[in-house]
Every structure is written in C-alpha cells, then in structure tokens.
C-alpha cells in the first residue's frame, strides 16, 4: 500500500489545508529530487492551480507564484526592465527547465543558479504568504530571507513589484565559466536617473540574495566614492560570502570587487 498520497488541489484553500501536515508543496519540481520524497505523507501538485497570471497593476507588476521562468523569458508586456527580465530568464537553466521552474519555487528554494530572487529583492518586491488558517502576511523579500525558517509552513501565493521599479535603470552582472555551467556569480545593480538612489543585490556570491545597503548608502551620501570605499565595504561582509567547490571565498571576493568597480566606473560615480 502506498504511503504517499499525491494531491491535485483545485484551489488555494485546499493547498493551505496541507500546510500543517507532512506535505511537500510541488511547484516546478526541478529541485525536489534532492530531497528524500518518501519521508512525506502528501505531495501537493501546485501546477493544478494553474496560477500563472502576470498582471500589470498601475505601473507595478503582480506575479502569481506559478509563473514560469519561460513566461518571463518570453515576456511581451511593455513594462520597465523588460529586457533585463528576459535576460535573467535566458540566464536561468535551459529551455525545458525554464518551462518547469516557477518564480515561487525559485524564491522559496533559492538555488545558487537563481537570478530572479536577486532581481526581485533589488526591485523592493514583496511577497504574499498564506498560513494554514488562510491569514495573509505581506513582507519584503529581504525580510523573508532574513527569517526564512519562520515561513517554512506558509504558502507563497503572490509576488508584487511596486510602481517605483520603473524609476530605475538597471545593470546586471553574471559570470559563468562555461555556457553549460550554472554556477553563476551574479548581482543586480539599479540606479535612478540622477543617481541619487541605488539598489545593489548579490546573487550566488552569498547563500541568499544579499543587499549591499552600506554601499548603497555610501553612494547616496557621497555621490562619488573611491575604489577603496568599495573594497572596504565588501571586506566587511566576508563572513557572508560563500566558499564551496565551485568558487572559493577569495575568488568570489575578487570577482565581486573588480566587477563592482568596473560597473560603478561606467556610471562615473568613482572619484
């Protein structure tokens, strides 16, 4: 007799009813095979919800958590950062995997090859999470990643990007050793037209997207900074920089400093 029940929920309420059970929420599923599936009592197939809507709300954007990376890669809406979104999609995995990977799954699992969580943090995106009672919690992505363990038994239903994201220009750095190597080192750099406001968020340099708030504030206050300013703010976050078989901490730090200096020189904000 099979121990595990595979569930095809027809609505969000049904999904929520499994949150306090020993259940696996199965979104795109491209990373579930790293887990021991037979320890779950239920596998809840979120694709049954068909929650794939991308809505423009005023000048902001709202994504249901089932939106796939392929949808973002092929985005046809005339919205700010469309090219950046499409580039992020292209840099994520390959065509068949992009058809399966969901934005909700990317945010919750946040594997090292994920680009969109980094971008969404930089966009000041917020998440709508639902608990087993149906109560909603809205929080910023930074808050979510700061305390992700707390939200393990919540269902992520929606991602909201505020209107202000349209005020920013964008730059995106992604370093890959080979085309087929998904061990990327990436960050998103956003700035407004008069360079009075910045968002700099690291991707696979750290375990979760990491916002370089100190560097952002330095740029806002001083207008022009030195290479030494960049190097010393990066040195302060050394403990958060990953060290693994793909790239050592020293290598990551070196790449990060060089590329940030290069990008900020292009923006003419280095004294």
């Amino acid at each position, binding site marked *: 007799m*099979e121990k*595990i*029940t*595979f569930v*095809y929920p027809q609505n969000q309420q049904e999904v929520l009813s499994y949150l306090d059970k020993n259940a696996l929420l*199965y979104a795109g*599923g*491209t990373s*579930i*095979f790293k887990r021991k*599936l*037979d320890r779950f009592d239920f*596998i809840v*197939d979120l*694709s049954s919800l068909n929650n794939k809507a991308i809505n423009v709300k005023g000048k902001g954007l709202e994504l249901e958590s089932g939106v796939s990376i*392929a949808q973002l890669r092929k985005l046809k809406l005339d919205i700010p950062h469309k090219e950046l979104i499409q580039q992020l999609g*292209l840099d994520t*995995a*390959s*065509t*068949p*995997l992009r*058809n*399966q990977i969901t934005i909700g799954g990317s945010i919750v699992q946040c594997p090292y090859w994920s680009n969109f969580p980094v971008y969404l943090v930089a966009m000041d995106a917020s998440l709508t999470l639902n608990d087993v009672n149906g109560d909603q919690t809205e929080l910023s992505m930074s808050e979510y990643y700061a305390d992700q363990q707390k939200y393990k038994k919540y269902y992520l239903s929606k991602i909201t990007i505020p209107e202000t994201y349209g005020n920013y220009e964008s730059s995106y750095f992604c370093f890959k050793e080979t*085309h*087929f190597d998904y061990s990327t080192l990436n960050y998103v750099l956003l700035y407004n037209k008069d360079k009075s406001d910045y968002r700099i968020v690291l991707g696979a340099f750290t375990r979760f997207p990491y916002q370089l708030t100190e560097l952002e504030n330095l740029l806002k206050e001083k207008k022009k900074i030195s290479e030494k300013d960049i190097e010393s703010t990066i040195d302060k976050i050394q403990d958060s920089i990953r060290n693994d078989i793909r790239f050592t901490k020293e290598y990551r730090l070196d790449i990060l400093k060089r590329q940030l200096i290069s990008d900020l020189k292009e923006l003419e904000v280095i004294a």
Partner: protein
Amino acid sequence: MKIKSIINGKEVEMEVSPTEKLVDVLRRYGYKSVKKGCDNGDCGSCSILMDGELVTSCTILAPRAHNKTIMTVEGLGTKTKPHAIQEAYVESATVQCGYCIPGSILATKALLDENPDPTEGEIKEALDGNLCRCTGYVKRITAVQDAAKRMREES
C-alpha cells in the same frame, strides 16, 4: 495510483508510484525513445512535449502527467512516413550515436510550432537544453533550418 494521459494521440492508463519519475514510467510503458542520460534535467535526452511544452521527463513526477497530453518522438512520424523534422535530421547527417536525437527532435518541434522561421540564435536557445557529445552542434542547426524550410513549404 492510476493516471490517464493522452500519449501520441491515444488515451493511456498507467499504474505509477507517487514518487516515480515520468521518464521511468514512459519507458516502462514502451516509449523507449525517451532516453535516460543524466537523470537530472541537464542533458535533455529525456525531453518530451507535455501539453505542447518541452520538458525533461526526468524532473517530473509521473502523477503530474495525469490528464496531460504527451508527445514522444514515436508520435511524430514513422520509418515509412517520417516527419519533416526527422527527415531533415537524417539528411543533414546530424545523427551519430543517436542518443540525443529524440529529445532534440522534440525540442525542434516545440520551436517550430511557435516560430516557423527561427534565426540561428533562436535555434541555439531553443535547443540549449539538448546536449550532444558527438557532433559539435553545427549540423544540428542546419537540420533545424532545413526542417523549418520543409515545414513552411508543406503548410
């Protein structure tokens, strides 16, 4: 548990385990064109079309295929009546060991269904999930361009 899918135009009922991979189920039910390469979503040998979308069947739990339409290369054409894509692949000499070919052909089908006249860049992107250790990919691009031309002429 039992699931029902439409595979290559026919309704098929299959007995699956909740944690079984779709690639294993399809092969167990005789769809041997669906190859197991990396078993990890990286090589594309196990690619199928599910509801018209190219997916890697080794990263999908079999129950997800319930009430879905699946195409494998067996459903595309036959030896006596091959599809234009199969003809193009054979005639462009892009087949060496053949292991990556079923997945590549379905990736080509997915591309040409959406974009009948793709650029070289679009071809490379559409097939970026189908790795080939034999050929170096150049002839595969030629095959897709040839297939696109044949399909445009047919329609």
